């Protein structure tokens, strides 16, 4: 049976392009080039997901995969080196791995006839629990964007733990990279704030600085809109949080790392990362205190003005704000750590 996704020829073309991009990203000798091609690969993936009807995923991929992860790779390369040393030999090893991987692939492909067709509406994944969400989301939560309602309400535990994973990754990067620079602090004379030199490298371009200064407020406004309007349009805490983090990362890149460090010191930054998770968990606890189960926002209707379904809608909003705070500041903290090599003084 031929699939009749909206434009399946388009999807097939994009899928082939994605494989090409993956091969190119791995075969380029310069690491900076590989990072850029990897960003283009993510954009292709984003188009594919929009074509398959997953707009929220496409949004997230455009912000995370193409934006932030490319910045992470680039800031790592900035602190290390972009050249790959070529050394002879090792072809036999690579071929051996190639054979092993091909065998694994053939093994996977041999299961191909057992899979449901591409786009089959009656496949097991589409026919078991998903119809319940589609039919009952409006009645239960008043949220037309099914992804938001499933993300924060029906599957609230999943999202809570995923947020905690982001938090733990942030802590892990701290414990890997962070170096105390207490010694160098005493060496440097105290900066006089009145006559302090500009907090950025003046050899940087004025045009880039001014343009990003103009863009950043709009980016942040848009991100808040994405978080708050996630009930009715693509968006939510993850996307909005990543855009907020990206706006701060843009400032850090176009000015200087010192500029952003002057506003976001280390301790408040980590406190904010933790406070997002805390907000999420506190909403869950509040549900228990008002007589429901953990993360059962419906029981919040005794403190919130409207009925049960509306209380669930408000609970989703609170939870999304918590997710947004954690994601935003952990992206910023990871970038600062990678760009300054854990020293928190200067960098990309």
């Amino acid at each position, binding site marked *: 049976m031929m699939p009749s996704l909206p434009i399946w020829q388009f999807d097939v073309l994009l899928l082939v392009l994605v494989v090409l991009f993956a091969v190119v*990203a791995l075969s380029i000798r310069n690491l900076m080039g*590989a990072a850029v091609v990897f960003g283009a690969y993510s954009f292709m993936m984003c188009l594919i997901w929009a074509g398959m*009807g*997953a707009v929220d995923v496409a949004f997230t991929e455009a912000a995370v995969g193409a934006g932030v992860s490319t910045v992470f790779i680039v800031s790592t390369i900035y602190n290390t080196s972009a050249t790959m040393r070529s050394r002879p030999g090792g072809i036999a090893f690579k071929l051996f791995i190639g054979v092993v991987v091909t065998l694994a692939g053939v093994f996977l492909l041999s299961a191909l006839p057992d899979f449901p067709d591409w786009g089959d509406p009656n496949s097991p994944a589409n026919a078991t629990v*998903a119809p319940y969400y589609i039919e009952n989301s409006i009645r239960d939560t008043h949220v037309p964007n099914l*992804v938001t309602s499933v993300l924060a309400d029906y599957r609230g535990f999943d999202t809570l733990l995923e947020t905690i994973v982001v938090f733990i990754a942030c802590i892990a990067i701290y414990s*890997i990279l962070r170096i105390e620079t207490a010694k160098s602090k005493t060496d440097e004379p105290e900066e006089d704030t009145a006559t302090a030199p500009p907090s950025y490298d003046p050899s940087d371009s004025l045009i880039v600085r001014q343009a990003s200064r103009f863009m950043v407020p709009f980016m942040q406004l848009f991100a808040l809109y994405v978080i708050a309007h996630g009930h009715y349009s693509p968006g939510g805490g993850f996307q909005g949080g990543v855009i907020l983090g990206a706006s701060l990362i843009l400032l850090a890149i176009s000015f200087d790392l010192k500029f952003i460090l002057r506003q976001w010191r280390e301790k408040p930054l980590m406190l904010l990362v933790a406070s997002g998770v805390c907000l999420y968990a506190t909403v869950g606890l509040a549900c228990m205190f008002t007589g429901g189960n953990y993360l059962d926002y419906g029981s919040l209707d005794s403190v919130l003005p409207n009925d049960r379904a509306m209380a669930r809608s408000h609970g989703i909003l609170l939870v999304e704000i918590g997710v947004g705070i954690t994601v935003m500041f952990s992206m910023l903290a990871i970038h600062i*750590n990678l760009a300054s090599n854990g020293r928190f003084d200067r960098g990309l």
Partner: protein
Amino acid sequence: MENLIANFNYVIVVILMMIGLWSMLAQKNLIKKCIGMAILQTGIILFFISIGAKNNALIPILTEAAYSDPDVATVANPLTQILMLTAIVVGVATLGVGLGLAQKIYHQHSSFDEDEILENQRK
């Protein structure tokens, strides 16, 4: 041929996973290994999203006309999408951890190359 088109997404998933796995095992450069890990990850995400896609379906945001009685067949599967949405964000966090480790290793051994690092350690 028709069978291939009907299952084309799975073929691409397997190819992407093979590319990612090969790069994680065979590439000597740590950054390339990280990129390979991300490609393996997108392969898996593509698998989930493409089993959640439905023919002739719209995006999983209900229009106002469908509030009272939504038609399941015309709305894409939201469940696989939320699982992958969180997976992408967690993916970038783990990529950050991997890059942090690579950076630390580079500053110890001043090389991204696996063989050189091993040689350095034996000294």
